C-alpha cells in the first residue's frame, strides 16, 4: 500500500502562520492526532484535502503530488474526509446523501453494505438529514466517506458531541476500517478514544507536530497530558 506523506506543509490565514512545517507519513497503521483547541488540527485536514491553500510543502500519495489539486481530484486519488461538525447536507435525505456518491454495485463499499452496517440509517433513509440525531449524522458522514472507497480516511473529531454509548459504537465501527485495510488519520480530543483507535499518536501544538508518541505512553504520562493537551480541555475518560 502506498503511503500518504505530508512534507513541510505551511499554511497561513492572512499573516497568521497556522501550520508550520508539518511533516508525517501515514500508512496502513491508524494514526491519532491530538492537541488543544485552535492548534491547527482542522486546518491540517483541510490542507490535505485541498480545501485551504498551502503556502509551501507537499502532500503526496505514493508518487502523486496532491498539493495544488482540487478537492474532488484529491478524493479521486483515494482520500476521503469526515469533517469536524459532520457537515451533512440538511437539504438532502439520508438516502440522497448516499445516492449522490453511489459507487455502483461492484465497489467494495456499496449503499447496501452501508445499510447493513448501519441499520439505523436504513430505517431513516427517507428522513431529512438535518432531522437526524448527532450520532446518526455522524454515521451518515462516515457512510458517505466510505462510499468513496478511498484508501485513506481523514476524520476530524468524529466523537465530538456524542453520548458515551454512541462513542463506543463509533469506535467499534472505526476499528472495522483497519481490518478493511483503510488508512485512518483520526483527530480526537478524547484521549481514551484516540488510544482505542490508534497506537501511533501525533501531538500538535501551535501548528507544529510537537511530539510523536504512542497512545500507551501518552495515557501513562500525566505530565505530558497536562503539557500538550491541557487539563480540563481533555477528557481522559
Amino acid at each position, binding site marked *: 500500500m502506498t503511503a500518504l506523506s505530508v512534507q513541510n506543509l505551511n499554511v497561513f490565514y492572512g499573516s497568521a502562520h497556522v501550520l508550520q512545517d508539518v511533516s508525517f507519513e501515514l500508512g496502513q497503521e491508524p494514526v491519532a492526532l491530538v492537541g488543544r483547541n485552535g492548534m491547527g488540527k482542522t486546518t491540517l485536514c483541510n490542507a490535505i484535502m485541498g*480545501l485551504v491553500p498551502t503556502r509551501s510543502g507537499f502532500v503526496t500519495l505514493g508518487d502523486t503530488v496532491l498539493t495544488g489539486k482540487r478537492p474532488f481530484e484529491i*478524493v*479521486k486519488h483515494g482520500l476521503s*474526509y469526515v469533517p469536524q461538525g459532520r457537515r451533512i*447536507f440538511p*437539504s438532502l435525505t439520508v438516502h440522497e446523501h448516499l*445516492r*449522490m456518491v453511489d459507487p455502483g454495485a461492484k465497489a467494495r463499499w456499496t449503499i447496501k453494505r452501508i445499510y447493513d452496517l448501519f441499520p439505523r440509517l436504513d430505517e431513516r433513509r427517507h428522513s431529512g438529514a438535518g432531522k437526524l440525531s448527532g450520532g446518526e449524522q455522524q454515521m451518515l458522514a462516515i457512510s458517505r466517506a466510505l462510499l*468513496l472507497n478511498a484508501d485513506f480516511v481523514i476524520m476530524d473529531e468524529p466523537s465530538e458531541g456524542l453520548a458515551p454509548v454512541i462513542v463506543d459504537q463509533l469506535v467499534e465501527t472505526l476499528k472495522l476500517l483497519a481490518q478493511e485495510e483503510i488508512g485512518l488519520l483520526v483527530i480526537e480530543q478524547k484521549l481514551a478514544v484516540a488510544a482505542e483507535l490508534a497506537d501511533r499518536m501525533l501531538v500538535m501544538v501551535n501548528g507544529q507536530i510537537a511530539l510523536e508518541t504512542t497512545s500507551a505512553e501518552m495515557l501513562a504520562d500525566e505530565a505530558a497530558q497536562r503539557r500538550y493537551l491541557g487539563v480540563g480541555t481533555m477528557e481522559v475518560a
Partner: protein
Amino acid sequence: MQQFLIVTLNGLTQAALFFVVASGFSLIFGLMRVVNMAHGTLYAVSAYIGWSIWDSTGNWWLALIVAPLFAVVVGVLMQRFLLTRVQGDDLQEALVTIAVSILVGDLLLQRYGGSIRQVRPPEIISGATTLIETESLRLIYPTFRLFTLFAAILIGASLWYMLNRTKLGMVIRAGIDDRPMVEAMGINIERTFLLVFALGSLLAGLGGFFGASALSLRPGDDGIYLLSSLIVVIVGGMGSLGGAALGAVLIGLAGQYGLAYTPTYASLITFVIMVIVLAVRPQGILGRSLGR
C-alpha cells in the same frame, strides 16, 4: 367580475414569466452565490434573436428552440471566461455582469433600435379561447397567454423533478448547503456550476421568448426582468424553487391588481410587499436562513 378575472389572468401570465426567469436567477444565486446582473440581458438576447428567427423564417417553433440557446451561449461564455476569474468576490462578480449587461444591451439597441416588437405565435396557440360562457358572464382570453401559463407550470414541474429526483439535483441542493463539502465528496463542482449557469440562462432565454410572444419586446425589458427576478427571489427566498413560484405569483398579481385598481400606486405595492417581507422574514417567505 369579468374585469377581475381578466386582471387575475393577466397577473398570472406575468407571474408565469417572472417565475421562469426568476427561477433561473435563483438557481444561479443559490448554488454559486453569484448575483447575475446580466440575467435580464439573457432574457433580452433570447427575445430579440427569437424575434429575428421568427421574422426571417416565420417558424415560431424553431425560434422557441434556438433563441434560448443563444442565451445559454452568452451565459456560459460569461461564466467560463469572466466569472471564474473573479470567483468569490461579490463586488467584482456584480461589476463583471453589469459590464456584460451594458455591452450586450447596447449591441441589441444598435441592432434592433428602440421600437416595440412582438412575435406572433402560430395559429394553434394564438387567437382567443372562451373560458366561461354563461348568460351573465363571458370570459375570453388570449390563447397564447394560457399556453404561457401552461408552459410555466410544465417548466416548474421539470425543474422540481430535476432538483428532487436526479443526481444533478442532489448535487445542486447539497451545493447550496455546503459547497466545499460537495467537492470533498469527489464531485467536480465547477462543472456543476457551468451546468447550472447554462440552465439558469436557458430559463432566462425561455422567459424572454415567451415574453416577446405573450406580451411584447422593447428596450428596457432586460432591466425590468432583472429587477423583477431580484424582487421575486427576495420575497420568495433565494435558491428555493417554491419560493420563486410564490414570489412570482405575489408580485405578478400585485402588479396587475395595482395597475387595474390603483394605477397611481401600482409600482409602490410591489415595494411595500418587499419591505414587509424583508422586515418580517429577511430570508424570504420560503427561504432558509443562510446562517453559515
